[in-house]
């Protein structure tokens, strides 16, 4: 786009910053806005699924369709809030919450065996059979103290993932 003059006012930037709980600095928000405008080619004020998928690096990601459901049609403020889980300033809880939302596709706060199976399917494609997937999942669930019928909630995810110490950060390029 090459649109160097940001059309955001200081007031807009502060509003966005508030909305994402200060996960990004003001400069990062300006950069994200440039990026948003670059992706939003038809200028509709939101980035459509087609526009996201035109980024080849995103389109080859196994979880791209799942993420598209979460990010399709968001306006800029919501877009920044969506990305806030990837900020180095985000807490571990926020990151785990994001992962939970990726699994919980119907948004009812509970992750079922099938939800986990679906994500595993996205991740492994045709390289593991459906039965094998079910087997693997049942086995590791059992070892962690859950069953096929268990409904996992956020606190379960916190318990399971809390100790892994994972890193889930992206760097926003600032000129």
């Amino acid at each position: 786009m090459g649109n160097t003059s940001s059309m955001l006012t200081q007031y807009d930037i502060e509003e966005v910053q508030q909305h994402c709980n200060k996960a990004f600095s003001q400069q990062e928000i300006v950069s994200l806005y440039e990026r948003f405008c670059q992706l939003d080619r038809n200028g509709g004020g939101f980035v459509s699924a087609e526009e996201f998928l035109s980024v080849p690096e995103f389109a080859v990601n196994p979880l791209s369709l799942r993420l598209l459901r979460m990010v399709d049609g968001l306006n800029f403020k919501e877009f920044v809030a969506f990305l806030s889980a990837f900020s180095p300033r985000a807490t571990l809880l926020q990151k785990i919450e994001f992962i939970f939302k990726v699994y919980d596709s119907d948004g009812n706060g509970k992750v079922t065996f099938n939800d986990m199976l679906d994500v595993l399917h996205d991740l492994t494609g045709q390289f593991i059979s459906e039965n094998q997937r079910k087997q693997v999942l049942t086995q590791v669930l059992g070892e962690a103290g859950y069953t096929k019928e268990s409904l996992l909630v956020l606190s379960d995810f916190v318990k399971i993932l809390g100790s892994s110490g994972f890193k889930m950060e992206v760097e926003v390029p600032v000129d």
Partner: protein
Amino acid sequence: MSSNQGKLKPSSSELDLDRPNIEDYLPSGASIQEPHGKLRLSDLLDISPILTEAAGAIVDDSFTRCFKSNSPEPWNWNVYLFPLWCFGVVFRYLILFPARAIVLTIGWIIFLSCFIPVHFLLKGNDALRKKLERVLVELICSFFVASWTGVVKYHGPRPSMRPKQVFVANHTSMIDFIILEQMTAFAVIMQKHPGWVGLLQSTILESVGCIWFNRSEAKDREIVAKKLREHSQGADNNPLLIFPEGTCVNNQYSVMFKKGAFELGCTVCPVAIKYNKIFVDAFWNSRKQSFTMHLLQLMTSWAVVCDVWYLEPQNLRPGETAIEFAERVRDIISVRAGLRKVPWDGYLKYSRPSPKHRERKQQSFAESVLRRLEEK
């Protein structure tokens, strides 16, 4: 360039076989160290590396960067700079532009009044006619370059014109062709365009020898490959100029070269072109402007300044595949013109990446899961 409206479609599988493994180039998010140890629930649920890669691509990606126009920084923010800038605008639009338009019109008049007679009257005498037409095409290209006040500096010994030789160059705009054509009458391979450009293509460029392709037709590639081969073998055809990127890139990056030009059994002469962006951004962003608007923009800028380097001719080395040859030449050109290489196929502007890449990631994850399941 056809406008990029409408849905992207998955790329035909033919296009995939061209590309080396892009995984070697892609930043793999959280440098995926092979996890070890018994498979636990946390390992299955922890999708953070893949999510990080996806978010990284949303925030910034090397493909989009290739097609970003570089508008020059505005410098007229000041009490005395602003009037200077206004004066500059007035000068450019009201004095330079009309003068250039006149020069270009004169050029066309001269050209057409020579070309049309030569073309029709010398129909019998082919050798002479071709020679004259070649000179005339070089002439009209010089007029074009003059109409943008083009300052083109040519470097390097120009390879002597021999048969079995093709020229390849990086591609920023259709003016690349005009700039090179004013020095040597090349035959060129281009996408057939609509409008006045298409008219020029079918009449005048036919005389120097042109090959048309159509990006959207899958079978087209084989036909074009055949035509390329025939042309390059012909002894008195003009040397072919090929832009292996297949699309216009913004002169800061280079996308993957298509192997078509490198498997003709000919010597490949690389040409590197670099525009000086202080004067004008010569990148033709076909998604944003038509070619006419692009030309008008050039004609109302101060100048088009660029460097052209003719580099040492290269041959296929023993044991080298066409793709490796293409990459090697791309390297030579990118280093000379200061371009950063990205592992993407330019045609991804018009189609989606093949599922092969996603499948590779899926396969490696699946294998790691199954392997760790066995461990105790």
